[in-house]
């Protein structure tokens, strides 16, 4: 049954991948005009150069032909080369992937570590000042745009602290330009962007844990546990939290594609050399092959993440069966 379910989901996913990549290409084609990727207004360029470069890059082919060629190559494992720098698209993606994973995985871990205690506190002290305070903070987490929060953190923790001669944090890049890259250096660069990104996760998940915890605590087995004289701490941590955490795992499963794409805004603001920044910059320059490659890759991850979440559901909750 399960194998059949996975196979059916896989076939449906293929259609999604085709749809997403075709739409991406159509959007680029209809808006690019006659732009040659990577070419600026340079007086040394002649009309012949622009025409020749367009032909060499295959930009004069009809979009459907271009798409078919691209797809054929992708099926054969060839994602092509960037139209701007001639490097392999897969090289671009795998060069940036570790940086993106570093940032988003850190943010997710911080998100869980902070969200769980906050959610528990909110549930145990429902209606208290602490609970109201947490509500305000998590609403802010939804409402405050990431780019704004990023700029504010830079202003406070890089610029202002530095001006006052206090310890400050670097504001861009994944490591120091000169002799950077050791653990402490990377951690220092990670703090600000990871804070912004995890703030969002924390806000979502702490609310989730809070309500999940409240629901669990009103269950019969909790009352039974209390009735048999178990300490409140055990009741809460062992019987309450463990059960309240199960749905969170699904929620994190759904965030998996965010591991790759989730940090686009944060990456751009903090000059973090990740996949989100790559996709953003290359989309603005109409680097067709790179944008298509990243899109394909990201779509696959979204689908895999969803599938994984669905399967996890079945594992964690025996009531769910696939058919």
């Amino acid at each position, binding site marked *: 049954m399960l194998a059949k379910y996975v196979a059916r989901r896989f076939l449906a996913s293929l259609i999604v991948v085709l749809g997403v990549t075709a739409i991406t290409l159509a959007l680029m084609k209809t808006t690019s005009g006659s732009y040659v990727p990577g070419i600026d207004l340079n007086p040394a360029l002649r009309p012949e150069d622009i025409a020749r470069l367009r032909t060499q890059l295959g930009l004069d082919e009809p979009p459907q032909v271009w798409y078919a060629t691209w797809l054929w190559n992708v099926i054969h494992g060839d994602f092509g080369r960037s139209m701007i720098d001639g*490097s392999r698209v897969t090289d671009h993606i795998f060069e940036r992937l570790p940086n993106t994973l570093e940032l988003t995985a850190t943010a997710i871990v911080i998100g869980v570590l902070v969200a769980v205690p906050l959610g528990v506190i909110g549930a145990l002290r429902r209606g208290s000042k602490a609970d109201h305070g947490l509500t305000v903070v998590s609403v802010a987490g939804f409402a405050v745009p990431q780019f704004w929060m990023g700029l504010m953190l830079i202003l406070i923790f890089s610029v202002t602290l530095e001006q006052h001669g206090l310890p400050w944090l670097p504001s861009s890049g994944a490591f120091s330009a000169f002799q950077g890259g050791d653990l402490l250096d990377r951690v220092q660069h990670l703090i600000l962007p990871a804070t912004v990104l995890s703030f969002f996760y924390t806000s979502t998940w702490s609310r989730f844990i809070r309500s999940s915890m409240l629901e669990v605590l009103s269950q019969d087995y909790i009352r039974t546990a209390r009735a048999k004289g178990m300490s409140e701490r055990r009741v809460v941590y062992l019987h309450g939290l463990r059960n309240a955490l199960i749905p969170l795992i699904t929620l994190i499963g759904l965030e998996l594609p965010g591991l790759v794409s989730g940090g686009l805004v944060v990456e751009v603001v903090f000059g973090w050399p990740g996949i989100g920044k790559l996709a953003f910059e290359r989309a603005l320059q109409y680097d067709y092959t790179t944008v298509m490659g990243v899109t394909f890759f990201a779509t696959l991850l979204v689908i895999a993440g969803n599938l994984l979440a669905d399967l996890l559901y079945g594992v964690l909750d025996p009531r769910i069966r696939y058919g």
Partner: protein
Amino acid sequence: MSRDEDAGDSGFERFEHFLEQWSRRDFLKRTGGAAAYVAFLAGGVEFLEACAGGGGTQSATPKKGGHVVEGNITDIRTLNSMLSSDTASNQVIGLMFDGLLNQKKNGDLIGAIAQDVPKPSSDGLTYTFKLRDNLKWSDGQAITADDVKFTYALAYDPQYKDFASPRRGDLSKYIASIDTPDPKTVVVKTTQVYAPFLASHGLYGILPKHVLGNLDGKALNSAEFNSGPTVVNGPFKFKSWDKGQQVTLERNDSYWGGAPYLDQWIVKVLPDSVALTNQLKTGELDIGPVDPGQFDNLKTTESVTTTEFPVPTFTFYAYNLNPDTKAGKLFGDKAVRQALLFALNRKQIVDAVFFGHGKVANSVEPPTSWAYKDKPKILYTFDKAKAESLLDGAGWAKGADGIRAKGGLKLKFDMITNAGNKQRESMLQVMQQSWKDIGVEATPSLIQFPQLVSQIVNIRTFDVFLVGFNWSNDPDEAPLYHSRNAVPGGFNGADFKNDQVDSILDQALGTLDKAKRKQLYEQFQDIMSEEVPSPVVLFNTGIYGWNKRVQGTDFGSFNQFGNRPWAHTVWVTDGK
């Protein structure tokens, strides 16, 4: 059951204990590290002050060792000199590859791997370059005339027609042949007299034939060399490229000009000009271009020195003159073009939008050019009354809605520029307001840069576009104003066609007599001041800032990006 519970309980206790311990220890460690770091920084500043006390580059003796980090806000695309067409890439390429020639900051050409700037033959068609003695690639091989021939062949020889060089159009048109009678001599024959030849095409970084010579054009497009050159002839060698973040270069001991003082030169890519300025302040960056809007922010920083200079760049707007378009019917009237320019308070634009870092343009030649004429025939100082009388005189009368019209045609149009360029966005707003004041309705709209380029070179459904243009040190402006470049793909998107201008530009390209050329370009500037097909709003300035620990830089109009003949003499006072 009870075992489980116990295990769980002690697990949680251990976890809590761990959290406590961890945070305390980590806090101590981190603050300790940060405090040490600050102490180091503070020490550095004191040391710098001590060094700077006497002042001046001259009094100090250069030290060997150390590094600089230079910032840039545009990502680097390629490290192959014959593929590159953008300043960010050229900047890094220029540190690794020397051409036949280089240029001083005033634009004068000087010899690089060629001993000297060659005198053209008497018919103006042949240039004979003599290479310096004992030139060596960074791998120890000799640099010969064959390398030069190979490099240029990439962009003119049909054998390499698949190589995606943006220089092919020009080089295949002007180069007839390249001969190498001996390893130290390169003879370039051109197909016709072409005055900007050396200035435009003499500075490309020479590539190593012994490394790339066995690849065909197609293979060269994607050669590993393009993102990690193994062999160089410039002051710095390639070390690593962390894509999206930085390129790290290191000293080339076999550089013909002498080994550089610095061990490393790092070029770092930043998200925007604000981040760049901040990092100049914090000392994370040593060198970087400064946005006019950030200048005051940086001026108060003691550790940073700045310099400002005119650059061969101007910001201009262009009217669509194609008579088949609606805009062409408005702008075909010279009085309209002139009146709109008179109505612009460009001094105010320079002061308010560029914070005074720029110069109101009187001419279409930048002031960095030797052919620049400061006062051409018509000067457009802000004069609203004159603008209105010009329009009145030409029959553009105000209608009931306050907008001028003539023969049922309203003086109403759209203006485009690229989104994200704050200065250009502000300029469109000022233009909209200034023109509204004389009864003209201009509506700004922002598009992405690629779309703007498409509009200029191909689609051409715009009414007015605003953009900047960066010139070389030759006064030729045919790309923008010659009618032959009004064809699709050319930069004369305004569709400006003037026989007299065409003929002057052609004559000036076809003679090597500088005095004659200067006279022709003065004539050209006079006509353009009368015709104003695409008025230059202002001449931009370049601003560079650098940490005071960096000595020996000499930024100027033509020594900004790719051409820095002094790169190997830059040094740092602290040797770090």
